[in-house]
């Protein structure tokens, strides 16, 4: 295992120390339990947006804490959801009197831990709502699985709902808005290589030099289908086809995401192909985001996310945001 780390068990704690040092004006970083908070939290009278999950997906979620997006992020150990105490402490730290919306990726661990935290916080008299993000079309949504996973779309939900909360939308509105974005968002990822979790020390799975994995998760879980490696045109077409077969789109935000180890050059190349394929299908790309935003450590690969847009969602997407990883309008 080749990593720039000290003790594998201390990776998250040490990274949080670096994050605190890097963004002193923007963030307050707490340890024990770990939380990344907006420096100006709690924001009185505003719905607080809280998310979190296992670490290793950076900049998700800590990189999205700040004005116009998250009020708090709860980082668990690498690829392991945070504990209820941790989430509860974050909820209490950022609650500004208008309730708290939890944005939770749909994994059993995340759901159970956030659920417990929400129960505790509600017992303290805080109005807490939860929205599950489950945008991954790789997983069949059926009674026979844990349901679709939350992947790239999570960022879009956080940005759009964060903007609404910043403008003063109430908890009901934020909750419905988040559900609407989730309902209109679909993603699919693929990997060329696996990542190595520090405490595991070896790659999560092995792919031959001429293989790729379609429908990869963001936790180093293998995907649903292993196929011979294809040129970019074929790869991107598979992702676009699967997403647009799952849901029909007209006006969209196109999010081309690196799984961490894929360079910008390849990512822009893939993005260009996706734009072309969407144009061929009569889908209008109104907004785009290209970069390593929802990652799986150093995994090489990419995901595409399409999010259906209307004028309201565009306006919220364009609203000012000031976080470590996403910033515009201020």
């Amino acid at each position, binding site marked *: 295992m080749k990593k720039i780390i000290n003790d594998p068990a201390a990776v998250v704690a040490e990274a949080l120390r670096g994050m605190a040092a890097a963004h002193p004006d923007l963030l307050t970083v707490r340890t024990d*339990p770990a939380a990344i908070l907006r420096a100006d939290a709690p924001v009185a009278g505003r719905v607080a947006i809280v998310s979190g999950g*296992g670490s290793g997906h950076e900049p998700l979620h800590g990189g999205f804490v700040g004005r116009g997006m998250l009020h708090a992020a709860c980082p*668990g*150990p*690498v*690829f*392991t*959801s*945070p*504990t*209820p*105490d*941790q989430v509860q402490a974050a909820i209490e730290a950022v609650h500004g009197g208008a309730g708290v919306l939890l944005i939770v990726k749909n*994994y*059993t*661990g995340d759901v*159970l*831990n956030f*659920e*417990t935290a929400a129960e505790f916080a509600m017992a303290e008299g805080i109005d807490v709502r939860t929205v599950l993000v489950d945008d991954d079309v*790789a*997983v*069949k949504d059926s009674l*026979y*699985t*844990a349901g679709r*996973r939350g992947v790239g779309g999570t960022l879009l939900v956080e940005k759009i709902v964060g903007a609404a909360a910043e403008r003063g939308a109430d908890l009901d509105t934020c909750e419905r808005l988040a559900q609407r974005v989730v309902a209109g968002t679909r993603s699919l990822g693929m990997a060329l290589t696996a990542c190595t*979790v520090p*405490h*595991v020390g*070896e790659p*999560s*799975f092995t792919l031959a030099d001429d293989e790729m994995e379609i429908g990869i*998760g963001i*936790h*180093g*879980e*293998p*995907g*649903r289908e292993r196929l011979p490696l294809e040129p970019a045109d074929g790869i991107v077409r598979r992702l676009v086809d699967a997403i647009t077969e799952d849901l029909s789109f007209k006006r969209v935000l196109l999010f081309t995401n690196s799984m961490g180890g894929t360079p910008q050059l390849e990512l822009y190349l893939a993005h260009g192909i996706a734009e072309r394929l969407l144009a061929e299908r009569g889908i209008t790309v109104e907004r785009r985001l290209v970069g390593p935003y929802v990652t799986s450590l150093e995994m090489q690969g990419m995901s595409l996310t399409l999010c259906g847009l209307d004028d309201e969602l565009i306006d919220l997407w364009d609203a000012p945001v000031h976080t470590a990883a996403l910033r515009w309008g201020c």
Partner: protein
Amino acid sequence: MGCSVEEVTAAVRVAAEKVIEHRDELVELDRVIGDGDHGENLHRGFTAVVAKLDGGGFDSPAAVLKVTATTLISTVGGAAGPLYGTAFLRAATALGDVSEVDGRMAATALEAALEGVVARGKAAPGDKTMVDALTPAVAAARSTVDAGIADVLMAAADAAAAGAAATVPLVARKGRASYLGERSAGHLDPGARSTAVLLRALADAASRTQRQ
């Protein structure tokens, strides 16, 4: 004769240490069909449990199980944290304020634990989860309920081991392994395995104290 609060404390500690010892095996099982953290998660959680038990001062077996539950909930994370946390919490509640745990109570506590896990995780037998180890364990415990606690736990441990082994051919329908679909078949479920390890250690500890 049943287990006193000291004996329960000692048994949970032994069980915690066994799980800690199995860290790498559980990591490896989870790496193959999950995300490779199950062993690390339980290692972190049960290390904290051992530290809590070192503090001592428990006035009932239920208190021991309860502190185990809350420690696991606040340190494990992932799917296993809330599930094992709930299991120990329900077991504690089932024991009430008894000062000694006999075979019947142990079976009742195990059953409560299973119900808690199912209530939280909604898994059915055959879904390739820890429920596949716990369910036969509860059945075995129930059918030996009139024996001593050591025999009850031994029956439960044997059944859990068999149940865990029987998860190998299954296609997962709950938890992270379910994302793999058919490809999850052919592998042991990490949570079922850790349940078997826990129960085996509890049974061993009980036999030792009961034989003395």
